């Protein structure tokens, strides 16, 4: 009965993990660079916020289908299809939720005092050590915001998932798609239960983010 939730959460967890690893160097770079290409990268990263999910879904579908070089390569080499399965959902979600991970981390890093970062270098610490032991621990609110909002946003996605993954039960049928289908077949009871769960969870997630951030601010004055 609740398999779509399980798929949603599995998808969101994997997406958060992958996006964190990608966004950490990217957001650090954006926060420190004075390069002229910075606005281009920022605009590219922010695109998923403004694009209709159908547009994003369409392009991802085109890029990953077996007619594209990438799709053909994976099909021929590993015998993996990149569309209408769980892998394609992960790829699509990583694009879709990218700005929600990058932007909070970037503004967190930008808010750090330059003197403090320099002090770390002058203590003999490398960039990586500085990011891990000085920068990240001092942007905990931004870090928590990035992780949780990315998770919640991925659970909440609908259009991209539908286009790239279809609605294969047990494989790509996530909670939001399940609700859509229940409404289509006029199963309002199921739709009510699912929607209430989504609503409740989303609220609790947001509430915990704001509560944590307020507490952290009092404690460390950051």
């Amino acid at each position: 009965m609740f398999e779509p939730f399980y798929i949603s959460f599995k998808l969101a967890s994997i997406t958060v993990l992958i996006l964190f690893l990608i966004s950490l160097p990217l957001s650090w770079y954006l926060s420190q660079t004075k390069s002229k290409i910075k606005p281009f990268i920022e605009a590219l990263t922010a695109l998923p916020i403004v694009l209709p999910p159908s547009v994003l879904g369409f392009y991802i579908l085109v890029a990953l289908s077996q007619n594209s070089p990438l799709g053909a390569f994976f099909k021929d080499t590993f015998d993996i299809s990149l569309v209408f399965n769980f892998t394609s959902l992960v790829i699509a979600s990583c694009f879709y939720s990218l700005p929600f991970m990058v932007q909070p981390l970037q503004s967190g890093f930008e808010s750090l005092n330059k003197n403090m970062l320099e002090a770390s270098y002058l203590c003999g610490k490398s960039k990586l050590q500085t990011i891990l032991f000085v920068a990240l621990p001092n942007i905990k609110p931004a870090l928590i915001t990035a992780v949780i909002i990315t998770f919640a946003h991925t659970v909440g996605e609908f259009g991209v998932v539908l286009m790239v993954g279809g609605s294969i039960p047990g494989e790509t049928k996530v909670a939001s798609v399940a609700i859509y289908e229940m409404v289509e077949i006029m199963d309002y009871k199921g739709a009510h239960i699912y929607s209430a769960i989504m609503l409740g969870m989303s609220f609790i997630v947001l509430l915990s983010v704001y509560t944590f951030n307020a507490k952290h601010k009092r404690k460390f004055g950051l």
Partner: protein
Amino acid sequence: MININIKKTLHGVNGAMSLDIDLSIKQGEFIALTGPSGSGKTTLLRVLAGLEVAEGEIEVNKSFWLKNNKSIKAQKRSIGFMHQENALFPNMSILQNLLFVINDLELALRLLSLTGLTKLQDSYPKTLSGGQKQRVSLCRAMMRKPDILLLDEPLSALDAKMRTQLQSEILALHKEFNTTTIMVSHEPSEIYKLSTRTIVLENGHIIKDGKTQEVLLKSQGSQKFSFEGELLELKEVDVIIIAIVAIGQQIVEVVVSKKEALDLKVGQRVILGTKAFAPTILHPSL
């Protein structure tokens, strides 16, 4: 022995300017770097620390930190650096701030006891006063037992009393570790107390370099008392005019005549002096 010979183009408030420094420093010297703002003092410090690039050579104890455009990274230079403020790691306790540099508990505890911070070792930076934070910053800079200690106006954000205390601590650590220290400062009294040699920069060039007493007394000292201040207000009271002048932390009232007041404008820098209490004989040719 430290030899510095660097060139760098700066883009300051007054347009482009070239920093051109040729300097030799003996081991154990305490150098004060002074001069108007925008003269390149901080940049020189940052180039030495490896935080900014420059052309030329920096040789420290027979190893080159900069030569033929090859620069050793800041991380690899034996440098202790103290920022003006805000350089502590808020996520670490005071002791952890020190141990983050090098895991040498004995040295950390010794430094904390030298600066009277032993009781605060488990506190976090947020709970410390400005003076205490700068003390921790100083201790942290000494953790690597650096060849060169660089201090970038380390006390300028502190009040006068705190400044005096920290000055003696800086001097104590400088002697204790026999390090070479370069400090940017605007305070003549601070420079006089701490440094053995003073270098004055202007527009990126060294315009004075010598023993602190000689440099300071020649440029700033005289037998007359005079203070520079800012004219805040001209008040007309009956037939006289009272000028309100800010000198350092003090506000002073001075009576001026109407004629004198005509030449004065609120906001301008003025010099307050006493007319001789005792007659002074001046050389006729002056």
